[in-house]
Every structure is written in structure tokens, then in C-alpha cells.
């Protein structure tokens, strides 16, 4: 920009230009900071939810080749015992999140929302569910009680059912 040299003029422009730029920069900075803070505000640091680990009794409480509804209402978990071993299934349909029903006579889990069907081991075989039910981290506590941690899920389609933390072997 070729301008006649004037008092206050420099490589950066006049004093007026400097304040023009600085003013807008300050506004932009304040606005960006406010926007960032407002967006971050929507993600709470603390949620008042229950602890994810719960005690589920002893292995002998669960009959061989059975699906237990004991913890369904309180924890949304089925305890399944079969020839694979003992494991916990999260009772949340992998389609859109409804709670499926265990149908003893048909030997399958059936979701009432859109008809997804799962085998007792959790694998999906009918309906819109795209993947098997999730297994939850299962272990034995120091007193021999079964401990289930709902904070850690294992997905069959990612090969995670091979992880020893997802099942108590017979």
C-alpha cells in the first residue's frame, strides 16, 4: 500500500489501522472464549450415577444351561451359564436400545421394539439388530462372589469375546 508518510504511519499502517485490527482481534478473542466455554459447559464433569460394579452372588447360584433374570430389573443384566462358561449379557438391544425379553420356550431373546432376535449366547440372528449383545466384564471377588463391571463391555464382532475378562470358564 503506497501511502504518503504521515505521523504514526509505519510498516504496519497508521495508528488508526492498528487500533482497528487490535479492537476486532480483542472482540474475536472474547467471543471465541465465550463460545468455547459455553460449549464445554454442556459436558458435565460429574454425573450422579450408580457405581458400575455390582456383586452377583456365587457361581453355584446359577444352574447349568440357564438364563437368570435375577439382575434384570435392577441392573439390566442377564447371567447366562452354558457349555462356554458363565457370562453376563447387557440387556440392551443393539438396534436402538430397548430391553429384549428372554423367551424360555423359544430359547431366544426377542426385542419387543422392532423384533430383533438373539441366541442365548448373545449372537443376533433375526431382525434389525446389526450386532450381538454385549458381554460385560465378569470376575470373582476375594470372597468368591461374582463381580460384574458394566463399565467395560466386550463386543463379539471385534473379537473381544476371546478376552478372558468377558467370561468365567467352567
Amino acid at each position, binding site marked *: 500500500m503506497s501511502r504518503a508518510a504521515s505521523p504514526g504511519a509505519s510498516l504496519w499502517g497508521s495508528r488508526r489501522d492498528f487500533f482497528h485490527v487490535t479492537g476486532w482481534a480483542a472482540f474475536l478473542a472474547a467471543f471465541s472464549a465465550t463460545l468455547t466455554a459455553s460449549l464445554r459447559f*454442556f*459436558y*458435565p464433569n460429574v*454425573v*450422579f*450415577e450408580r457405581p458400575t460394579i455390582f456383586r452377583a452372588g456365587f457361581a453355584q447360584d446359577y444352574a447349568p444351561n440357564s438364563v437368570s433374570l435375577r439382575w434384570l430389573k435392577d441392573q439390566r443384566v442377564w447371567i447366562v451359564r452354558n457349555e462356554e462358561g458363565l457370562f453376563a449379557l447387557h440387556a440392551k438391544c443393539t438396534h*436402538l*436400545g*430397548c430391553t429384549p425379553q428372554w423367551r424360555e420356550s423359544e430359547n431366544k431373546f426377542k426385542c419387543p*421394539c422392532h423384533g430383533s432376535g438373539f441366541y442365548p449366547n448373545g449372537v443376533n440372528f433375526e431382525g434389525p439388530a446389526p450386532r450381538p449383545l454385549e458381554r460385560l466384564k465378569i470376575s470373582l471377588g476375594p470372597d468368591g462372589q461374582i463381580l460384574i463391571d458394566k463399565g467395560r463391555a466386550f463386543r463379539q464382532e471385534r473379537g473381544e469375546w476371546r478376552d478372558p475378562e468377558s467370561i468365567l470358564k467352567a
Partner: protein
Amino acid sequence: MAIETILKKIKSTAVWQSVFRHDWADTSRNRSLAIAGNVFLHLHPVRVRPHAVRMTYSWGLGGISFFLFLVLTFTGALLMFYYVPDTGRAYEDIQDLRYVVPFGRLLRNAHRWAAHLMVITVWLHMLRVFMHGAYRPPRQFNWVVGAVLLVLTLLLSFTGYLLPWDQLAFWAITVGTNMATSTPLLGAEGPFSVVTYDNDLRFALLGARAVGSNALIRFYVWHCIGLPLAASVLMAVHFWRVRKDGFSGPPNSD
């Protein structure tokens, strides 16, 4: 004292003159002033094309939608006196409104009916505008504003649906917000996901990992304050645009 004399006296007072700027006798002047001097009525365009005067031109659908919005605001505000967005009492508060509060049943039902009707009328209004080609230049921006208003209307319905805190509400919102986990980038299960279940879009919507007390209060604030404010601002722009551009004409006119 004759009626005319009393009326004349009242009309000559300073109070009356301040409130009413024109008389009601059927003259052209009074008719013009009635429209021009009224904040609500003068929102209509100054000039209207002859073909647009027919009611069947627009069926008044935009106006009906706005009227329903006002009904919802009024009934909604009244409902707020008896409803608390706390999971411990929200359901019971709705029962209260239905069976105990005087005219509570009417109020709650009016609110719900107006909500469903408003969704229907905004779609019909959109259809009418489309059929008339009233989105063509110079009205493209107003069409876009209208599309955003449509989204806001649907969001108002969605957020309001949770508030009765019954089975229908809980599961509908569970299913609806689960879809947010599939958002690209910002959803925990979406393509190119950069977040986990603890900080994805669904978490921000619900304020927790599942629908619960945080979700209820958040949806209440969106429903009563956030979304109506946004809708009001956009409606002001939308109406102002119609006033400035006028009603559209037959094809190849304007």
C-alpha cells in the same frame, strides 16, 4: 344524556386520544390507519397483488402456524405453574393437571393438540409455498429460514415429548438420542469417531450416559427457553422478509 354525547366526551379525553389514533367510522382513511397503526396488522405487506387476496391463495397456513405457536406459548406458560421437571414428581404433576387442577385437563390437552396441529400446518404451509414456487429468487433466503423454523418446530416437539416422563416419553427419547451416537466425528459409534460415550454428542444432549434427571431438566430448558427464543428470532426475520418481498406472483412474474 344521549349515548352519542357520552361517547363524544370519552373520545375527547387525553387518555383515549393517546390510545386510539383513529376513529371507527368506515372511511378509507380509517381503514388505512387501522392497518398501518397496528403493530400486528401492519406486519402484512403494504401492497398485495389482486390474485393473492383470495383466502385460498395461502389458506392462511403460515398465519395458522403462528397462531398455534402463540397458543402453545400461552398454554405452555400456564402449565409451568404446576409442572416441575424433576424425575420424582414430573409424572405425578401431569396427573395433577389432568385430574385435580381446575381446567388442567383442557389446558394440557390444548397444549398437546396445538403441538400436533402446528407440526401438520407448518408442513402444509411449506407444501403451499413450494407449489407456488414462492421460494424462487428473491425469496430463497426466506425459504431457508423457513426450513430452519421447521427443524425448530420438530425439536420443540421432541423435547416436549420427554416432559410427561412416562414410558412413551422415556423410550422415545432413548431411541431418538441413541441415534446421536452415530453422528460422524462427534458420536461415540459414528464414522471417524474421535470421542467416547463419556463425551460424545449424546452425552452433551442428555448430560449423562442415559436418559435420567439431567436429561429431563435439559430438555425442559431447551423446550421452554432455548428453542422458543431461537424460533421467535427466526420468525421475526421470516415475517419481515414476507413484508418486504410481498406475496409471490404467477410464474415468470415478480
